[in-house]
């Protein structure tokens, strides 16, 4: 029986190296295209803190935090630094910032107790909330979780926001 000599795309014509190069180039092009078209693309450069940060408290996602908020079991703590005169935050949230931690905590002395369940949140970066959670743990607070994704995730999950003006209880 005569052996077929047809050259097809299946590897009988090109060398494996050339075919592998074609596949790699096609993959790179498809990856670039899908990256652009994805609704939630990863940033081009990975942020080491996202991967290496040893969090001081467990994370909760926004729907879970929303459930805490609706049942009223948890106190929400905004850890974002003071920025614009007008800002949006979670209604009822209190403020504890890294650069004024002791003063902020002192102001909440009669309001926030070590047995209270707390949700700390920031702008999505976990460094600030984790820092505050760690310092609160040092002061005896034990039931602390960090809102993953921060205020944006809260808002995306349908969480209520209120506009506050600096000075309205923002320590």
């Amino acid at each position, binding site marked *: 029986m005569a052996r077929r000599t047809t050259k097809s795309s*299946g590897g009988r014509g090109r*060398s494996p190296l*050339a075919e*592998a190069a074609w*596949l790699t180039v096609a993959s790179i092009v498809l990856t670039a295209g899908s990256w652009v078209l994805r609704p939630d693309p*990863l940033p081009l450069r*990975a942020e*080491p803190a996202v991967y290496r940060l040893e969090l001081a408290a467990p994370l909760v996602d926004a729907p879970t935090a929303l459930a805490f908020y609706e049942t009223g079991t948890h106190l929400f703590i905004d850890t974002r630094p003071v920025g614009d005169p007008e800002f949006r935050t979670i209604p009822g949230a209190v403020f504890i910032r890294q650069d004024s931690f002791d003063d902020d905590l002192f102001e909440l002395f009669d309001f926030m107790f070590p047995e209270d369940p707390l949700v700390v949140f920031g702008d999505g970066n976990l460094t600030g909330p984790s820092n505050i959670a760690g310092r609160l743990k040092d002061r005896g607070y034990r039931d602390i979780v960090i809102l993953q994704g921060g205020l944006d995730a809260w808002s995306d999950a349908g969480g209520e926001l209120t506009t506050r003006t600096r000075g309205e209880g923002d320590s």
Partner: protein
Amino acid sequence: MRWIVLLCRLAVGGIFIYASLDKLAHPGPFAAAIDNYRMVPYPLLHPMAHLLPVLEMLMGLGLVLGVLRRGAALIAALLTLVFIVAIASALARGLDISCGCFHTDGGHGVGLDLLFRDVVLLLLCLPPLLKRDGGPELADLLKK
């Protein structure tokens, strides 16, 4: 022999296609799974988390359909070799991590069984790579 090659093609191709699905859907957790190995520098982490599943999918399709078959087998063999090195390195460093092979949320922990599985996968890559006659191909079917 060509049927053995075909079986190897379908097995390896099917495995890589299946492995790519969850990674394509969840590049963030997959990037975290890659980072657990502590081998990839951060500037390459996200590009790799996006590129690897696409490469696995294309290569798997190439093997199953017989399109660019030997090139797909070459990439499959090289990738499997990289996986073997990564797993062996994680084992040597005592890392207790998930392999990130098929599922990005948890999944199989790295261990000797995983190393053995990848060695078998590497052996399965060889017939489609080394044999020129690798069984039915898409181009053949289209000609009929």
